[in-house]
């Protein structure tokens, strides 16, 4: 990575490292040529970026509507007619923020690792990997914002993974903490100590419950962060560059499937009175309500028009995808909650599941 690029990407001076003589040639490329090339690439990237920002959510949202409608054309059209674009976009961002931040974090972390590795490689002929080029032209504030988004949207259990990712993206070696080894060790020990103190009760619970994966996910990543910054050997980088690109793409597709199938509208149970006086619960998503009918997209499929005067009650219900998989808490924050969700639960701590949500499946 050139000095200018490193400053742009990292937002700070690059780490001081001693380059072998043969690598100096790479670092001493003509600065003007690099600047011109970089600004042109930035301009192009900016265009593509904004196209993606507008285009991807739009395409995803329409795809989601199709899935939500159960693949029925008429139902999709009904949804399109009734779900506003702003609601759709806001709904998309609510459910996709986690995926979006994960992809960005992965790209930036890989980009930085590959970038720094290619720069140190003996044969400079290798074309810079795609992610490294992306990382170079991305402003540091955007990289930081992506990590911030991940910080507030990732489940707490996976949050420790953000530490090595952050260290890799900004190539923060322990040497940056202090120039002398003694204080450096002390600072690292203090940071790890605070981390351990924060997590100790959770780790004990995880041990008791035999949750080995949770234990590893909470303990190992901060330790990996100590070693993750720095160049990879050439033998690793050559195959890694294309593999990571495919892996991130595969991850995107794999993680996008649940996002596409996440409902656009909230799940409700509507109590409807029949002519005989008995009541019936209709489980589904309310598409719209007018003076005559309430239009409900039933959970099991099909649209039902319920006359408004027959509606006796309506409750909001959680969906089964929201059921927790772990029984661990970090300082009373559930490990599957993100920081945002955890804070939200503190604002509205009482959560009551209405009886009607249980009765019908």
């Amino acid at each position, binding site marked *: 990575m050139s000095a200018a690029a490193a400053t742009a990407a990292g937002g700070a001076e690059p780490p001081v490292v001693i380059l072998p003589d043969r690598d100096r040639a790479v670092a001493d490329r003509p600065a003007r040529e690099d600047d011109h090339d970089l600004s042109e690439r930035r301009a192009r990237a900016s265009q593509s970026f904004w196209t993606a920002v507008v285009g991807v959510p739009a395409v995803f949202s329409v795809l989601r509507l199709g899935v939500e409608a159960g693949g029925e054309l008429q139902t999709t059209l009904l949804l399109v007619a009734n779900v506003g674009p702003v609601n759709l976009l806001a709904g998309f961002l609510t459910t996709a923020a986690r995926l979006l931040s994960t992809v960005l974090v992965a790209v930036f972390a890989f980009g930085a690792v590959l970038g720094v590795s290619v720069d140190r490689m003996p044969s400079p002929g290798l074309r810079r990997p795609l992610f490294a080029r992306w990382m170079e032209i991305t402003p540091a504030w955007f990289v930081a914002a992506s990590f911030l988004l991940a910080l507030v949207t990732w489940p707490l259990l996976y949050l420790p993974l953000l530490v*090595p990712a952050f260290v890799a993206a900004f190539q923060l070696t322990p040497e940056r903490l202090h120039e002398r080894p003694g204080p450096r060790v002390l600072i690292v020990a203090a940071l790890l100590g605070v981390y351990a103190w924060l997590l100790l009760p959770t780790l004990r619970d995880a041990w008791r419950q035999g949750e080995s994966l949770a234990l590893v996910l909470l303990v190992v990543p901060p330790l990996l962060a100590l070693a993750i910054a720095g160049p990879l050997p050439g033998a690793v980088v050559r195959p890694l560059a294309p593999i990571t690109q495919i892996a991130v793409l595969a*991850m995107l597709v794999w993680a996008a499937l649940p996002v596409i199938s996440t409902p656009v509208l909230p799940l409700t149970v509507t109590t409807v009175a029949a002519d005989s006086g008995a009541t019936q619960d209709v489980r589904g998503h309310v598409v719209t309500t007018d003076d005559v009918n309430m239009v409900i997209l039933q959970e099991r499929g099909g649209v039902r028009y319920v006359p408004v005067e027959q509606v006796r009650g309506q409750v909001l219900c959680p969906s089964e995808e*929201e059921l927790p998989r772990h029984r661990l808490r970090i300082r009373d924050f559930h490990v599957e909650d993100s920081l945002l969700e955890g804070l939200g639960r503190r604002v509205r701590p009482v959560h009551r599941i209405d009886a009607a949500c249980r009765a019908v499946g």
Partner: protein
Amino acid sequence: MNDAVARARVRSIATTLAVALTLTLAAAAGCDSRREPELPSVQEKLRESHIYGQPRLRIGVATNEPLMGELRNGVHVGFDVEIARYIAASLGYQGDDRIEFVPVSTEDRVPALQGGVVDLVVSSFSITEERKKLVSFAGPYFVTTQEVMVPTRLKDNIRTIEDLRDPKYKICTSGGSTTEAELEKHQVKALVVKDVGDCVEGIRKGRYDAVSSDEAILAGFLAQYPTEFQIVDMPFGTSELLGIGVPIGDPALRDLVAFFLQKSYQQGRDGLSSPWLTAYNRTLGPWLRAEKRQPQPLDVPKLVDFDDKAPRR
């Protein structure tokens, strides 16, 4: 120089390992985020139970046990009834239009469950080993003791179990109850009628001299006729654990009922107002001599529910 190169090599190997491990962990986290919960959920148990999809929940209750289960002006009231309403609401049957209260007498409780007449029985149903062979129990939700209630005119004459054995006194109890067996164990000859209410009516009409039953049931009648009766504390030596009866063939329903009793127990233990406490204070509370707390339910399954992520403190 050689030293620097060697250090750089070690460093790059460490970095490679760190990157590889981070990727492995990230992949593991990705798989973990998509797996199904290991523990069964409340919803799954509901789907397994025989009540799933039923429009109404049929609950067997007593109709002539004041404070516990009573039919007053066409409305079912009492501690058992309140507990039954809480369990029903937790199972998805909120409101009396979703519950069908079926009156069951003491001796009909087991047959009603076995015959599928009711889905649950909440009617001062003591958990015993004998009954456990015929029906399942969730609970206990109340611990009571066996007591004797005498009319005020005999309060000085009947004080001990020895007095109960005196053939001149006619002791009454309800058939099919644990009290019947307990009296037999103490060689007390008792006249067995259908319900405790019949005993009380009998005493008032002069047919019997004392009635023995659970403290909670007797407290109900005492509340009804406070000047006519008195409860005599006798050391029968056993405590009665009241549970909710469930058909033996429906372990999922038993698990659910136990789970919701546990939920109420935990709320009470955390110092919050629990459904149990509300039911107790509204019914039995003012009439019992010593204050009671909800006992910890036994054999509670670990289930996953939607509110598991809610803050506990």
